[in-house]
């Protein structure tokens, strides 16, 4: 486990020449092992059920999917890195930090809702926000807003699969949730880690 970057935000004046804390850990971790075991077991089950053809069919389909996603992953990583470099720590911690109040949660929500791309954008950018001084509450609002009211997934997948009526009502019902989740996150965080609160 690496240290959280948000514990020691670098002072704003030397932010440009100080190396950014590593946001991404070493490529092999326990989550990778869990997934690898799950995949191996599932692939074996598919092989026993459908034979080698079933295994290859899924493999070619998923390889194509992987090839399509790869450039977007690069775009997401670059977006996160650029945002971490250009956003001033001081300003971010003022507008999205622990004392940013409802306004910070609303900014996080709006940011999550307009953020383009999929998980390959949202998580690097959210991580960059944590690095430059946003608190857990505002970042939770951003991530939850991106998953629930972000237009990317709704347009690409939910509308065609679930239909317009369901999708629109689902989004309307979801509108208050990011701010509530961020507020709850902030509320719990301050009580769980009293020392981290300023």
């Amino acid at each position, binding site marked *: 486990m690496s240290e959280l970057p948000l514990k020691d935000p670098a002072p704003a004046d030397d932010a440009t020449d100080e190396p950014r804390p590593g946001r991404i850990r070493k490529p092999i971790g326990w989550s990778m092992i869990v997934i690898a075991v799950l995949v191996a077991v599932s692939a074996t*089950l598919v092989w026993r059920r459908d034979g080698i053809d079933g*295994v290859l069919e899924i493999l070619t389909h998923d390889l194509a999917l992987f090839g399509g996603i790869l450039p*977007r992953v*690069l775009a997401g990583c670059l977006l996160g890195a650029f945002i971490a470099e*250009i956003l001033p720590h001081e300003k971010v911690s003022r507008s999205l930090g622990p004392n940013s109040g409802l306004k910070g949660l609303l900014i996080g929500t709006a940011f999550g809702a307009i953020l383009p791309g999929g998980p390959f954008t949202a998580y690097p950018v959210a*991580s960059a926000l*944590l690095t430059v001084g946003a608190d857990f509450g505002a970042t939770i609002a951003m991530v939850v807003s991106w998953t629930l009211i972000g237009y990317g997934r709704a347009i690409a997948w939910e509308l065609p699969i679930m239909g317009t009526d369901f999708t629109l009502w*689902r989004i*309307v019902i979801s509108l208050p949730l990011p701010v509530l989740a961020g507020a709850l996150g902030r509320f719990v965080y301050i009580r769980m880690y009293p020392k981290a609160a300023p």
Partner: protein
Amino acid sequence: MSALIIDIILWASVAAVGFIAWQRGRLILTTAVREGSMDFINIVPRIALGVIGSGYIAAVIPQEVITGWLGPDSGWLGVLTAVIAGAATPGGPVDGFSLGAVALKAGGGPPQVIAYVIAWALFAFQRLLLWEIPFMPARFVWFRAAVSLPFPFLAAAIAMAIGRP
């Protein structure tokens, strides 16, 4: 088509923030590009495993198991089942929404399906492990997932109260 539009918005955003970085100085630009590229290289093996593997995981989990108990008369037990099913659903957006659509077509109650889709969006285990943990501090991820727990229930309650969709 919509995928193309999203790609264009995505790369335009990259270009816009890249331009701002370039205006701040070449050093900032090159640092950011190097950092972003390193992140990319580190993340690719995980994504390869997850994306290529998720098809197998989705193929062995029977859909009926996930969509079985979400009928309109299932009430709060149905909502609870939907939340657990949402968290357990493997695969990408196609899988999650397809199962939701199957549940709706098979007679699932809208509040239950809302709870399912929202639970899946908020804390599907595979997305947490594959996407969120690699990119973000683990402590944040678990904290966020825990904080998100009440919200599928709240959404189902709102859906029941307004009688929509």
